[in-house]
Each structure stands twice: as structure tokens, then as C-alpha cells.
């Protein structure tokens, strides 16, 4: 059989459909810079989802667990080799995502004889000030985008757009505090999940997303899921800046 450019396009389309179908139902991840650090938030069943990569780097994603695990370990390996061989200052988000991780994902996606990664991943890097924080979102085809202030990964690109509106409101001035950042992130999560999974909502448009609808949806989701939130702490004196937030730190933002 002769393999033509047409076949290549066709196979990429099939792969894309296959992956996006599997990602649609995934639990979104919201990332946001706040005055005291960087926050990632998602909802999960039992498995942990937000991970420390290096001193000022963390990571979370949605999709296939073992694919995420390969990315996680790949990023940690690269970061620690570099941090030891050069210096911790040389371990940056753009090197980790751009050079260490994304080429491998792109290769897997283009290699029709192998399984592609079924993931959307979000990396966050803490700077000295909120405006120096960086987020990278990484797609299953190896494409990545860098963002400041906030970032989101969700089941569909449209859902991510809706989340971003929540994370960075137009009237927002400067960096929020942790409490505000948590509230925005949780709301954004709910909107991202709803938007990717509720067909009616996409037809009705964003106006139909009332406060009440979001609250009810969150309450439903929290029956089987729990909030996982982690921060990189800008002002801690500890060696480890990364910390999972405790239950009593999360409880104040949950619906009554």
C-alpha cells in the first residue's frame, strides 16, 4: 500500500477526534497568580492531580493518567538534572516545557504507528512578583502557549476561553489575594466543566450561566469530587515553596 499525504491528513484528523473525545469529559485545571504566589486548582476523585516539579515550578493536567505521569516524571528529571548540573536559576518553565517536554509530545502525535498523548497540561512558574509569574499550557499535539496572570486547561478550547474570562475579570486591578484567587478558580472550574460537557449551554450562550446555575452545578459535583488546590508560596522561608492547601483553607470558598 502506498502512503499518501492524504492518508497523513486523514490519520491526523482521526487522532485529533479520538483524543478530543477523550479529553472532553476531563476535570479542568485553573491557574492564577495572586499577591503571595501562584495557585492551581482542580477537582478530583481520589488520585492526586497537582504536582511539584521544581523549586518554582508546578504542574497539573487532564487526560490519561499514565500520559500525565510520563510528562510529570520527564519534567522532574529534566529540572533536577539541570538544577544540579547548572543552577536552580537555570530551570525555567520555557526550557522545561519548550525543550524537554513538548518535542516528545509532538513526536508521539505525529507518529501514526504509536499512541499519542491524551493530555492537556498546565505548567506554572512563580516569579518574584505576580507580573513575573508564567503559565504554559501544553496541548496533546505538542503545541504550547505562554500566558501571564492566569491560564486554564479544559475539555475543549471554547471551555478554556470561558474559564479565562472568570480568572481575569475585566475590572480586575493588580494581583488578587489568595481567597479571591481561590473563588475565581473554583468558579472558572465549574464554568469550564459545564461548557465542555453541557451541549445546551453552548447553544444558549454565556448569558445563561447564572450564579445559581453555577452554584447548583458545583454542589452536585462536590458530591463525588473534592477540590484540590496547591500553591507556590512567594514569601515562605522554607526550602519547599510548593504546598497543597489544607481542607480548612479550601472550605471557606465552597458553596454552603
Amino acid at each position, binding site marked *: 500500500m502506498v502512503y499518501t499525504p492524504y492518508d497523513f491528513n486523514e490519520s491526523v484528523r482521526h487522532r485529533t477526534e479520538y483524543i478530543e473525545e477523550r479529553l472532553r469529559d476531563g476535570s479542568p485545571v485553573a491557574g492564577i497568580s495572586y499577591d503571595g504566589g501562584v495557585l492551581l486548582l482542580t477537582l478530583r476523585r481520589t488520585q492526586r492531580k497537582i*504536582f511539584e516539579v521544581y523549586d518554582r515550578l508546578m504542574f497539573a493536567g487532564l487526560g490519561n493518567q499514565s500520559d500525565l505521569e*510520563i510528562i510529570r516524571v520527564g519534567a522532574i*528529571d529534566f529540572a533536577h*538534572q539541570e538544577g*544540579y548540573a547548572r543552577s536552580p536559576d537555570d530551570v525555567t518553565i520555557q526550557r522545561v516545557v519548550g525543550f524537554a517536554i513538548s518535542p*516528545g509530545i509532538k513526536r508521539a502525535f505525529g507518529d501514526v504507528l504509536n499512541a499519542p498523548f491524551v493530555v492537556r497540561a498546565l505548567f506554572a512558574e512563580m516569579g518574584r512578583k505576580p507580573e513575573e509569574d508564567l503559565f504554559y499550557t501544553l496541548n496533546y499535539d505538542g503545541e504550547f502557549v505562554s500566558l501571564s496572570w492566569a491560564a486554564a486547561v479544559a475539555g475543549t478550547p471554547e471551555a478554556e476561553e470561558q474559564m479565562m474570562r472568570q480568572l481575569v475579570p475585566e475590572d480586575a486591578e493588580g494581583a488578587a489575594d489568595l481567597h479571591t484567587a481561590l473563588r475565581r478558580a473554583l468558579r472558572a472550574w465549574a464554568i469550564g466543566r459545564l461548557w465542555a460537557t453541557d451541549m445546551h449551554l453552548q447553544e444558549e450562550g454565556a448569558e445563561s450561566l447564572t450564579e445559581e446555575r453555577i452554584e447548583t452545578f458545583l454542589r452536585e459535583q462536590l458530591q463525588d469530587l473534592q477540590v484540590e488546590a496547591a500553591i507556590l508560596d512567594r514569601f515562605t522561608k*522554607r*526550602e*519547599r515553596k510548593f504546598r497543597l492547601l489544607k481542607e480548612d483553607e479550601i472550605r471557606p470558598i465552597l458553596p454552603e
Partner: protein
Amino acid sequence: MGEQLSANHSGDFMALLRAHGLWREPEVIPAERVVPAVQEVHGTTVIALKYRDGVLNVGDRRATSANAIMYDRAEKILPLDDYTLIAIAGSYARAMEIVRYLQHSFKYYARTQLQEMSLEGKLAEVSRALAGNLSMALQGIGLFIPVVSAYDLERGEGRIFFYDGMGARFESVEFGAAGSGSERIRGVFDYILKTKGPFHEMTLEDALRESLLLLDIAADLDSATAGIEKVLPVARAVTSEGIMDIPEEMLSDIRASLRR
């Protein structure tokens, strides 16, 4: 990317470095080729004392090479992680390299395995790093002796461990010290214990006062130890709350009270 995974399930940082050719094994040079002219920079006196809340580490800041004073701002008390301090004496170059290795090794394990390395595991890792250093030490360079202080969260107490150059580990009940000055003041530790009671019952301030006095005596008896006069020593403590840098004001107040 898949291969990287399979090579390193255990969170072993040395295995990762070896797999990528980043671990430099000290080379054994045949005896006839050993050039004795290499003058290493050495760190001198470091002291670890238990006190009420954990372990206090104090080190002078002098680094010497043969008779020359190379540096008077050397840091010899370093955090390995949030509950472990290392105090180093001997070859400064090798010590810093191994401290960097250990810091990454503990972090790497915790991040890949999603659990902290146990205290026992950390202590064994220090031994392994020292044993790996042996071929250099036998050639007369690169030897260094660490004192490791840790807060044992399970037992709820501070603990002090000292090592020999081959990696043998010993746990100390009240205090530990290393470096050229430490040998000369060994009897003073016992004198303090017998006249003022155990270190582990002292307040931070009392333990600091004793440790500065010990450093001062060491400096009087050992030319390689800077003592406390010209530059304040580095002092850090490890407690259940993590690592605490002792503020300079506190050190200079105590130094002033010692002068009388």
C-alpha cells in the same frame, strides 16, 4: 520520554545522573602521578548543639588554604531540606558539590515518589556520597567531614549525626563538632555538660552563648578558625517548625555580653 521513566522508578537521583552521564566519579590517579602541590581550600570549625526546641548549628566563616586565609565569609552551615542541616569541615570544593547533590537528591525523591525520604534514608544517602568520595580522600584531597542535624518529626526531637571520611555514621547524644578547631575544644563540651547540665535542656539563647564561647576558644587555639570577633558566625537551628536562621542582632548581642 518513556525510556526516562523506566530507568528510574525508585527516585534515585544518583541513578538518574549516571544514566545521563552527569555524575562525576572521582578518578583514582596512580601514586606516581599524584602531584602534592594542590592546595585545597578548607573549612574549619563547626559545632552542633542540642537545645530545648531542636538542634543549633554554629560555624565560623573562615576558609583557609595551607597558611593562607582565603575567605572570611564562607558558609559552612547549610540546609539540606526543611528539617535537615549539614555542617561541613574539610575540603570546601568537594563539600559544596556533595551538598548540592544531597539537596537535589532529597528533593528529587520527594517530588518523584510523592512522599518525603525518611530520616534513615537521608542519612544513608549522606554515607553513600561520602563513600563515593573515598578514592579522592585516599589521594589526600577532597576529604571532608559533615555533621548532620535533623529534626525527627516522628520522635519529636532534634538529632545529631557525625560521620568519618568513609561514610560511617554515629549518633551523638548532646553535641557534635568537626574541623581542625573542634579537636582542641573537645574537652570544653564535656566541661560545660558537667558544670551547666545537658545542652538539650538549654534555651536557644543559652545554647547560642555556649556555642559562641566554644568558637571563641577554638579560634584561640587553632589558627584556621576565625572565631567570632571579625565576622559574625553563621548560626541556624532546626526545630519542629523547620529551619530558622538566627538573626545577626541576636548573635551580636550575645557576642557583646561575652566580651564584658
